[in-house]
């Protein structure tokens, strides 16, 4: 699906990674590892097309990503560090806007996504009244709404309780098993039956070699 060739990124004259090349195939589950500051977030944001400060080539289904931007963005779901949940709005209002940006409206699906993520009865409560973990769940409810093939998740397990972590692990595994692809970062050992590909940025760094 997504292939990366010769990718290099430099931050403040520090090489984060160079000559990075890999292909994320359909049905694969990728975990990007590395110490704090090793460039995990930067890599994910480059892959998502948010950060243009790199050299190398990104290809989506064999075509250069920047040339098929709309097509790529239709197939991509990205979740960054921040939960992308407006605190003054309710989960329903937040998710309605998300759906509208994806080009559809479906309140029934939003309610069932919230139920699925343990937020039954919270649809109309302003998000600022919720805990950090619940806000993260609102954010992750998008996974049940998006039809994107490729998920890029930056530290999606932050603030989740143990049940939430297990559910999310199961969810990403199911997505990969169903022919999607997932790239995520996390510091905890991922519990999954699905074959996991690990990309360790520490081991790839030039000075480490």
């Amino acid at each position, binding site marked *: 699906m997504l292939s990366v060739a010769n990718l290099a990124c430099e931050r403040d004259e520090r090489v984060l990674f160079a000559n990075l090349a890999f292909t994320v195939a359909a049905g694969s589950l990728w975990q990007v590892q590395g110490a704090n500051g090793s460039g995990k977030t930067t890599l994910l944001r480059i892959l998502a097309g*948010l950060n243009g400060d790199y050299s190398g080539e990104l290809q989506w289904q064999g075509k250069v990503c920047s040339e098929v931007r709309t097509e790529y*963005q239709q197939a991509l779901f990205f979740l960054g560090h*921040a939960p992308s949940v*407006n605190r003054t709005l309710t989960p329903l*209002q937040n998710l*309605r806007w998300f759906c509208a*940006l994806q*080009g559809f409206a479906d309140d029934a*699906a939003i309610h069932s996504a919230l139920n699925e993520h343990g937020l039954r009865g919270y649809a109309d409560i302003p998000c600022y009244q919720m805990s950090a973990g619940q806000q993260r769940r609102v954010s992750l409810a998008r996974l049940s709404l998006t039809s994107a093939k490729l998920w890029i998740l930056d530290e999606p397990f932050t603030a989740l309780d143990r049940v939430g972590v297990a559910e999310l692990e199961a969810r990403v595994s199911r997505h990969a098993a169903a022919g999607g692809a997932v790239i995520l970062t996390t510091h905890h050992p991922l519990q999954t039956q699905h074959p996991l590909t690990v990309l360790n940025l520490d081991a790839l760094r030039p000075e480490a070699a």
Partner: protein
Amino acid sequence: MSRVALGLGASLRATLRRELQLAISSPGKIVNPLMFFVIASSLFPLSGRLDIDVLGSIAPGIIWVTALLAVMLSMESLFRSDYDDGSLEQLLLSPQPLYFHVLIKVLGHWLVTGLPLVVVAPLLGLLLNLPAQGYVPLLIGLVLGTPTLSLIAAIGTALTVALARSGVLLAVLVLPLSIPVLVFGAGVVDTALNGLPVAGVIALLAALLVLALSFAPLAIVAALRINVQ
């Protein structure tokens, strides 16, 4: 299946609705610039022994300058919360035409911050002894001019969204660009007060609005892409 596919218009309406919901959920956004506008304008008559006719003749300038500052103040919050909580990433990564979404977001913001300024402006005209023939041109000018100011200020807001405190920098970026609007906006009223036809000046203001509507969204989108990395 209850999923309804939305066209561009419907998804733009969703963005507009969200902007209005945000304003309702934090009413300070609407009230603060309005209070600033009223208080700052009403300081002028108190600030010295201004002759009442002199006051009337500088009233258009006072109203326009304070309106400009109020618009700038109000626009600072346009992308702030979306940047902080990551919603801006979702917007930039959505397969939607950003040009229209950004445009509708600015216009939504104008509806709740700029339009109230236009509505209270006649009251300030009364306070500042604006001659009777100045009210209609003042209103026409503000209706055409404040959206332009909002769009210009939004460019500055988008450029400074990554900075924690952008107040002064925003002013330095935005104020010079706002000068033409100010000149023609206050000019409409002055022209009317001098008994001259105002159509030409109004046309210039309208032209500035069309220019801003066409090009400001491009600049805003580009600035947001630079800042969200």
